[in-house]
């Protein structure tokens, strides 16, 4: 587990990180989200030791992180970079050797990785001759070549088509499954929502929210519920008249509402169920073919995008 404790950092007079504290648990994928200039890249660089922090500590499994530890991390910087005129396999072997692999081990590792990432055929092409998506895969291979003990990836999915996202995701999940902490940032909140186990939101250099995806959702879910009725003439307009209910959205049989209490919400459900039963038992009572049924009822959980907007504001 990587833990950051009260990290601060300034560039000149500008404070870019203020009391940043969060952790990246082993075996879990942690999404790191924040707007442009929020401090994501600086934080990641500090974890990697590429930048020094002003104050605070970074620990790995409870002990201060060392240069030796960091050299075994896998890092993918935001600004993509490999040697444009060097062959793909060759530069990956070079990076493997810099990480301390023997030439033979590096060669084997690179062959495996290229195979898994579907780049074997391009192994002896120069990087600049690859498509952007393939360059991105090579970049990910560069972060993985030395079997890292932790992964820090800045925007690993940007520029990938959905197929490639799945390939890369599979590889990263394998790493997480082996107990490696994986921290990745992304602007694509839907991807983060789909992929990550934990989420940390940063804004203006401060950590705004951090925790497991479910916990965050539960924490940020309000008193809002939704109900959907189905049927030829389904109309949820009656919800408006329920006690303790404020209707926020209505569209035929679909209604979103805020409930003062769970009981008030349950009352809505009860009436809906009763209504549909009634109509089923007594056809023609409400309308000739008016058969309504409860299709859906539940508390609204906010999407990550909503949580993000909420905490950033």
């Amino acid at each position: 587990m990587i833990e950051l404790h009260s990290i601060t950092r300034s560039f000149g007079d500008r404070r870019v990180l203020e009391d940043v504290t969060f952790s990246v648990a082993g075996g879990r994928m942690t999404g790191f989200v924040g707007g442009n200039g929020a401090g994501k890249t600086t934080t990641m660089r500090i974890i990697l030791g590429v930048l020094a922090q002003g104050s605070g500590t970074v620990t790995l499994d409870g002990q201060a992180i060392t240069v030796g530890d960091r050299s075994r991390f896998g890092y993918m910087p935001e600004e993509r970079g490999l040697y444009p005129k060097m062959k793909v396999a060759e530069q990956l072997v070079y990076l493997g050797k810099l990480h301390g692999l023997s030439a033979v081990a590096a060669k084997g590792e690179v062959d495996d990785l290229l195979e898994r990432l579907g780049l074997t055929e391009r192994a002896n092409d120069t990087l600049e001759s690859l498509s952007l998506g393939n360059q991105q895969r090579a970049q990910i291979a560069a972060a993985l070549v030395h079997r890292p003990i932790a992964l820090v990836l800045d925007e690993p999915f940007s520029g990938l088509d959905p197929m490639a996202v799945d390939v890369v995701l599979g590889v990263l999940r394998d790493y997480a499954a082996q107990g490696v902490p994986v921290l990745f940032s992304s602007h694509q909140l839907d991807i983060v929502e789909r992929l990550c186990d934990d989420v940390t939101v940063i804004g203006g250099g401060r950590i705004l929210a951090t925790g497991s995806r479910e916990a965050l959702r539960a924490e940020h879910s309000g008193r809002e519920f939704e109900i959907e009725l189905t049927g030829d003439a389904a109309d949820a307009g009656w919800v408006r008249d329920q006690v303790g209910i404020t209707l926020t959205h209505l569209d035929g049989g679909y209604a979103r509402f805020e409930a003062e209490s769970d009981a008030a919400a349950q009352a809505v459900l009860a009436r809906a169920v009763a209504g549909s039963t009634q109509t089923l038992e007594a056809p023609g009572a409400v309308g000739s073919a008016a058969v309504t049924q409860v299709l859906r009822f539940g508390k609204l959980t906010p999407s990550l995008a909503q949580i993000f907007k909420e905490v950033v504001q």
Partner: protein
Amino acid sequence: MTTQQTSRHAAPVIASHTRQLGAPQAAWLVAEREISTKLRSKAFLISTGVLLLLVLGAVLFSGIASNVGGFDGPTKVAVVAEAAEVGEQLSPDAFEVTEVANRAAAEQAVLGEKVDAAIVTGGEGPIGLTVLGSDSTPIGLVQALSATPQVELLNPTTENPMLAYFIAIAFGIVFMMSAMTFGTTIAQSVVEEKQTRIVEILLATVSARSILAGKILGNSILALGQVVAIAALTSVGMLATGQDLLLGELGTALIWFAILFAFGFVLLASLYAALASLVSRQEDVASAVSPVMWLVMIPYIAIIVFNTNVKVLAIMSYIPFSAPVGMPMRLYLGIAEWWEPIVSLGILFASIAVVWWLGARIYERSILRTGAKVKLKDALTAKE
């Protein structure tokens, strides 16, 4: 170490077979890449080939010129019948003798440019001969005819001002070409890594100093290799064309040139790398490294201008940047004591220590600062 770390971190199930590299190993890996990349560049191989051919050509040319005794072949001399005996004494290598009837015929031959000079009898000198020339004194012929005492050189040398001048230019050109070629290479390599941001990945693995040291090491090895190749080719060429006497005199100078150049280049390379790290785009490299470009060009110009000025040469031979050119020149001219190159090398070592410290400081502080050119002052004073 590996097992220790694995047990320390509970998480990694992955069999770890990496070990942290020491700084020298990391630097050597970087150096290796610099060398192999350069050796595979077609442009580099071609330009090196052309350079070596030029050197070989110059050596062969100088060999042929010195054997023939001049660039125009033997001097054509007309000799009047009365002085035929004199004509026979002239070396047939240097003079082509034609006999003419009388002074008038000789004058005609000279004026008609059929011959370069003529020997006629008469005149006021003790030897009773007059040499006719067209518009200038035919020095070679006059010397050949002069009653000079037998000369026995106890310390034979081919040293002459013209040769010294050419040797000065040769040292200057080889120094400048090699320093610029590999200085530019290191500068571009630094900016390539900065521009493509791969340096961020490298920095996450090895220290900035290891990267810088590796780059300097790799390019210094290449530069030294080129200079040694040139020196070797020169030596072989001289032996093949019978200039072993010149080689004997040049030998020590060549060896010291290689040694001083190798370390002098380390100095220049540190500066090239440090200055290049200030900018983020290849287009800006040339302007960024222009100050050190001057440091490379000044010794070249100075050695050509002052190749006979003993005082200036003495000063040049102790200034770290011009020592690789100045000291060998003095050694060739035989005006340096045996210990002088060693002292000069000592000064060079001290300068390398200072410049390396400064260069590494600049490099470390500017290599991640992309965008506008980093000011030198900021790079030196900024907190890391």
